[in-house]
């Protein structure tokens, strides 16, 4: 019995030692200094919804060098949950982080935070009208927020007609003169026309089901592509289309129909804005004056689902994002205009949006 007791004492001591030696750390992030000048590409990695692991990558095309997680490394804090989009204005990058309800302003060379806009519902895109006025579109809100970026303050709202909070969805914005055009995506089929002088929706144009993107070409024409909805949707399911819209008359000038079941997305323009690109399994390229969809893709599908697309405005190189399985670092492929693979590099989880510096 004594031996048993002795063994138990030993076991207890060992157990206590193990327990007390235990420690775990929720690490603080360290900070680094960056000074990345010259042309560069920001890549926004959405991260996994509700896991707060969105990141920002920066790629130097000339040096073919990528730096990942630059926001966290420069600022000692995380970017947030679902990085949605980014624009640059006057040396400041504005990053919309959807489910963190925030828009960060960063220095585009040091990546250090300059300020942030909060109080948003579910922000998607930001568009600047001036240094002191910008619009921020939302999903699950029937208002477009008007903000003062200089003071990082919300200054007003644009009410969108025929839209409830639940069905609210405003997305990308382009500006032509005094008017800003906005595509409405989730369970929507409209392009809105907003008078920036009055901050009112003054007109709207019905297109197909769920227009996902909006771009303005060299001829002043708007381009949007619909995804056509999905099977079983009470909103409808149809073959998607690419639309060329004349903003003056605010009418559809040309409709390019895809096959039923296709999933086109990510309408992008080259630097000269005379070529349009999109994803539909493969990568497609078309002149903005074309009358028919191309028969052959620019780059064929390669055993993966492409998730993001951008064109280098200077060189015309095509960058394609592969999210792989959506829970690991995605891969960016860089192709020349001549379809030659120039580089590939890993970024963060679900690379979905780009921004050129």
């Amino acid at each position, binding site marked *: 019995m004594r031996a*048993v*007791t002795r063994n138990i004492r030993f*076991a207890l001591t060992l*157990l206590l030692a*193990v*327990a*007390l030696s*235990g*420690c*775990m*750390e*929720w*690490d603080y*992030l360290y900070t680094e200094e960056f000074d990345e000048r010259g042309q560069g590409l920001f890549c926004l990695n959405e991260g996994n919804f509700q*896991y*707060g*692991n969105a990141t920002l990558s920066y790629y130097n095309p000339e040096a073919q060098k990528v730096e*990942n*997680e630059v926001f*966290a490394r420069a600022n000692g*804090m*995380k970017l*947030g949950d679902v990085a949605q989009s980014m624009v640059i204005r006057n040396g400041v990058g504005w990053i919309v982080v959807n489910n*963190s309800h925030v828009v960060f302003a960063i220095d585009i060379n040091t990546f250090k*935070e*300059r300020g*942030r806009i*909060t*109080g*948003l*519902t*579910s922000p998607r895109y930001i568009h600047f009208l001036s240094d002191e006025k910008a619009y921020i579109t939302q999903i699950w809100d029937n208002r477009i927020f008007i903000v003062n970026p200089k003071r990082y303050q919300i200054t007003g709202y644009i009410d969108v007609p*025929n*839209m409830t*909070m639940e*069905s609210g969805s405003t997305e990308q914005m382009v500006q032509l003169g005094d008017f800003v055009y906005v595509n409405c995506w*989730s*369970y929507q089929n409209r392009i809105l026309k907003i008078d920036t002088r009055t901050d009112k929706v003054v007109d709207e144009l019905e297109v197909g*089901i769920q227009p*996902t993107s909006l771009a303005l070409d060299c001829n002043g024409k708007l381009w949007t592509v619909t*995804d056509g909805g999905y099977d*079983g*949707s*009470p*909103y*409808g399911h149809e073959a998607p289309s690419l639309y060329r819209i004349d903003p003056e008359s605010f009418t559809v000038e040309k409709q390019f129909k895809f096959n039923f079941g296709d*999933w086109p997305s*990510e309408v992008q323009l080259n630097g000269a804005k005379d070529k349009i690109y999109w994803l539909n399994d493969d990568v497609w390229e078309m002149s903005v004056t074309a009358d028919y969809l191309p028969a052959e893709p620019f780059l064929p599908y390669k*055993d993966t*689902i*492409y*998730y993001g697309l951008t064109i280098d405005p200077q060189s015309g190189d095509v960058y394609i994002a592969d999210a*792989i*399985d*959506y*829970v*690991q*670092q*995605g*891969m960016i492929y860089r192709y020349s205009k001549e379809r030659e693979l120039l580089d590939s590099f890993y970024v963060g989880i679900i690379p979905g949006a780009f921004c050129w510096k």
Partner: protein
Amino acid sequence: MKFIIHNSLFTTIRIWISVLIIFNAAPLIAQTQSDNQEWHRRTHDIPEISVYGARPMKEIGTQQTKLDTTALKENIALSMADVLTFNTSIFVKSYGRATLSTVAFRGTSPSHTQVQWNGMRINNPMLGMTDFSMIPSYFIDDASLLHGTSSVNETGGGLGGAVKLSTKPAEAKGFGLQYIQGIGSFKTFDEFLRLTWGNDHWQTSTRAVFSSSPNDYKYRNHDKKENIYDEQMNIIDQYYPIERNRSGAYKDLHILQEVYYNTGKGDRLGLNAWYTNSNRELAMLTVDHGSDTDFDNRQREHTFRGVVSWDHLRQNWKIGAKAGYIYTWMAYDYKRDLGNGIMAHMTRSRSRINTFYGQVDGEYYIGKKWLFTANLSLHQHIVESRDKNIIRQDGNKAIVGYRKGRPELSGSLSAKWRPIDRLGVSIVVREEMFGKEWTPIIPALFIDGVLSERGNIVAKASVSRNYRFPTLNDLYFLPGGNPDLRKESGWTYDAGLSFAVGRKGLYSLKGSATWFDSYINDWIIWLPTPKGFFSPENIKDVHAYGVELQADLEVALSPKWQLGLNGNFSWTPSINCGEPRSPADRSVGKQLPYVPEFSSSVTGRLSWRRWTFLYKWCWYSERFTMSSNDLSLSGRLPEYFMSNISLEKVLVFNWADLSLKGTINNLFNEEYLSVLSRPMPGINFEVFIGITPKWGNR
């Protein structure tokens, strides 16, 4: 407003409890103290180690972990998620305190663990998983884990295993009452009431648990910084804020009614009815820069589960039948303050689940060497999911959702043979039908044998095929449901040794070591699509293997001192061995995200007279958050240690037994995350006062 609701609900519950006491106190005449109400007895006799021949025929070759009453009834604030965390080697993935808690059994996903309550499967048919934070441990009298192949004895679909939860008669003699009040950190209130009454034939029990808390614990947020601006809106300083857990309040009410009748002539009837009313906010992420006053993010649930059972027992055969019903109403509301105090819905989701359940089973012994069993169960689900209100193109309103029904039939036959006392063999064949689709025959083979009578060393081995059908959301959820999904399938192999030694009244030492190896094909995972929503696909083949160790020690150090130690350790590599999804895919050959490779738990209990000190410790190794196991800044969660202690004293009076208990959770005040962006509470405290009156027994 929240305060008013809380108080009114509290008052309603107190009135309800008073009514129950009055109602149940009626048969007080000549009542005696229930003999099962010795919950205060924390010391118990150390039993004789059973001899090898007494191993139940039904458990030939099975690997199971049984949770004893002391673990289940440790304190009223615990859910089954807490009990599993500290008493088993299962990995419990908790999204926070009183928040969704799912399990990864042997490195599998939550939907690979089948959960039964009194024989009825309670996995959510839409999601496939079970939220163990919604099961109060005080409502469970018997709990056991059936590891891997062993689950095939009870049900199909348990690619990781099965958790069997059940209630049992209180064995009361007369009227009994137990009331416990817990008050803890973060304004946490836990209340438990149990009323029992019984005689030789009838047993009734009513249990109620009510838990509430604003749950607004403080933590230093390492994931974000607050800015300090000058007048020109330049940042002049930044700091990591100390925040409260925002939007994490909960109010959970559970009521369990049981009635049992035993004819004394071999027939037993039972009725179990369990009602849950839960109202939980969904806590904001650490990286959320919104204000909790701007949003209301809340999940509510009303669930009723009822089972009636009949067992007819004879000397060498038994038949039984069960019928049950589950009704679940779930609401998810995500609201936004429009700036005028009006909270407008961003998301308004509702779902209703009706499940009808029936089961018949039989057992037939031929001598002492053969046992044949048969079992047939049916779960008929009718699900209505209403996830989003939209305005259609024609201007009319519509709802995005689905309404589907699915019968789930599962039947098994088994033959168990013990040719000699030292050897047992069991063969099980099972077949399942979900909707109109049948599985192939699911075979399972179990063997055990006594290697040495000295030390009761028993070797066990088993092998089984298994299948899991897609859930209703996998198939039909809008948008994204994929009706073309294949069922997951797998092979599992188990082998292990167990031993037991001891001397009655002095000590007992039991232990086991198990090796397992399983292959799961066509693993279903939800992935984002370019259309902006998620959709499930059969994408992975997973090889999960490893070792599970268990040990249990009980020692009477002296007539007044007693020590209990229970330990578990698991090594569970869970490796993606499918084809690369693209040339850039680096996940093949890597550990699945959020599945720890190692986990362990230890519980130590030291009793002296009517004092009991309890130490609980658990450890999960580093978990990767990416399938490629990248060690980026957010690619891993550091290993996780947790220590909880409690001290209890029982006071015995003529009129009642009183129990006083204090607990300290997160003893070393660790700042930690269980899941990315989900902060866990630091050190926190709760005290419990319990009373068991001695009716008519002074």
